[in-house]
């Protein structure tokens, strides 16, 4: 029995929200919906769901220039959740859903705190799987996101982290994992290929996600903008 996951869907297109709702499997309960930045923050704070499925592009009254509505929701909702729970780190996680292939948008939401990114073209089963992964604390990487990460951290030109806590480069193992994900491997297959456990793969992916969120590498956006890799 897979555990039950409570989800809020944030998207400005009601047709997309209802479509997605119908497609998610029965272990996922949709506890709220929102259509713009302001309502999303209110609904998420109110419902405190396990996972927020979040469109990258959201209309909102006060979205600062240079960021997307999705990233803004993550920032504001996380802050107000923390406040509501008396400063405790909220357990709500964010999964970005996007039709946008623009790297700056996707990297923007990831850096704002999203735990993963999938395209809106993904099937209901894929989305459900991703929701469960994110709810369980894992990161969800699409092949394109993995490819972008490799590029942004200089893997093709042979940059490798020497220490595991180095934020601006990937370790050799992390590069291997990212390469396999970029080649279309599922975590399980990555584990089999590298003779490690799935759990270890997940740890590596989470480590990469953390680097993506915290690294100050200017290439992150420079690369993304120049090549629209995602």
């Amino acid at each position, binding site marked *: 029995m897979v555990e039950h996951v409570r989800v809020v869907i944030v998207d*400005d*297109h009601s*047709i*997309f929200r209802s*479509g*997605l709702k119908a*497609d998610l499997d029965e272990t996922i309960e949709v506890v709220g919906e929102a259509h713009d930045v302001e309502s999303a923050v209110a609904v998420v704070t109110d419902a405190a769901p396990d996972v927020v499925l979040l469109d990258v*592009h959201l209309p909102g009254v006060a979205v600062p220039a240079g960021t997307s509505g999705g990233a803004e929701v993550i920032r504001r909702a996380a802050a107000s959740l923390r406040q509501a729970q008396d400063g405790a780190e909220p357990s709500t996680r964010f999964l970005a859903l996007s*039709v*946008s*292939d*623009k790297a700056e948008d996707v990297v923007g939401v990831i850096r704002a705190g999203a735990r993963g990114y999938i*395209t*809106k*073209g*993904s*099937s*209901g089963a894929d*989305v459900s799987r991703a929701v469960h992964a994110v709810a369980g604390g894992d990161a969800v990487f699409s*092949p*394109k996101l*993995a*490819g972008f990460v*490799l*590029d942004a951290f200089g*893997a*093709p*030109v*042979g940059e490798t982290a020497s220490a595991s806590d180095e934020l601006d480069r990937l370790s050799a193992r992390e590069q291997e994992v990212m*390469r396999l994900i*970029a*080649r*279309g*491997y599922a975590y*399980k*297959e990555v584990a*089999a*290929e590298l003779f490690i456990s799935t759990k270890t793969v997940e740890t590596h992916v989470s480590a990469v996600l953390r680097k993506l969120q915290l690294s100050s590498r200017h290439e992150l956006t420079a690369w993304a903008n120049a090549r*629209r*890799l995602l």
Partner: protein
Amino acid sequence: MESRAQQVTDAAASVDADAAPSAPRLTRPRACVATGVAAGLAAHLGWPVWIVRTAFVVTSLASGAGLLLYVWLWVFTPWAPGEERPTRRAPVAWLLMVAAAISLIAAWATSGRVVESGGNGLEWWLLAVFAGVGLAVASGAWATFIDRPDADRGPRQELAIRIVATALLAITALALVFGPNANWFPVPTFVAALAAVIGIALVYVPTLIASWRDLTAERTKRIREEQRSEIAAHLHDSVLQTLALIQNRAGATSEVARIARAQERELRDWLFAGDAPAESDLGTDLRDFGAALEIDHAVTVDVVVVGESRERASGEMAAAAREAMLNAARHAGGEVSVYVESTPEAVEVFVRDRGPGFALADVPGDRLGVRESIIGRMRRAGGSGEVRQGVGGVGTEVRLRFPAAERVEVGRG
């Protein structure tokens, strides 16, 4: 002279041979001396060119009738049909400039005599000054409007003409103001000097017109760009969303989803056009090929490109990769992942599908597809190819590798 006229006649005649056998249509040949009027008219009338030219000169002496006719014909006679830019053998701008200089020098040389004779011939003197100024301006205009697109002359000649014209007219103006005439005939001299100064301004007017035109074009372009990005934003919010929804409701490999995906890709390419690389590299090419495959086969192709792609789309590597993708689309279907990585050492392409899979050893030797078109091709080109079963026995993965070392050498040399 005769032979050139003959050539022109022949050329014009052959162009219009079937239309009008008696007299070729009146057109100006594209390779001409100055404007092509004389040569065109000669071809039309069947006369030698020198007669036509002489006639123009002679009739011009009769109150400028010939000149008028010449200009009339110049304005209303079309170029001979053809693609190439008209070329002019005569350096018309410089000839005009020389004429201007002669005219002005003549005026300067005679100014003393005009003063001595107490104003006798003043009108001729003035005429020479005005003619000089007019010719200098005409020279500048010719260089700007007519000679500029000419590859042999172009902006450099234009600049030279301008400098000479400015110098000539400035010296004229100074000479007039400080010369002897200014004392004796202040008003006509002042008018002449003013004409010279206005002439300088006129020489630069074409530049102003040109930059005004550029400015307008720039503004139009910007407005168009703004409109386009507005439309793009709107389409992004509406149509792309709907296409995404269609895809995920219809099931990834259904006909409808594939069409929606193809449309989405096309729309996206259009929306973000402009920042696409002009030259097709390996990644772009495989992406396009994947899009084409999705239309013909029940398959979704995900192409991920990492690293600066130096491999050209026309190479053996690309051909082998396309073959592998086609194989995957045909025999496996479903989801196909393509991964292209360019490192300084090598270019690698992985094509992965989740179909029933096959091992190379099981493929009969007479099936040339994989063995020849992928692995053999890579080996002949100096790379390597490998087909193996996917992880966990699911699907097939083709791995292509091409070392970059020699290509870098070639690039350097």
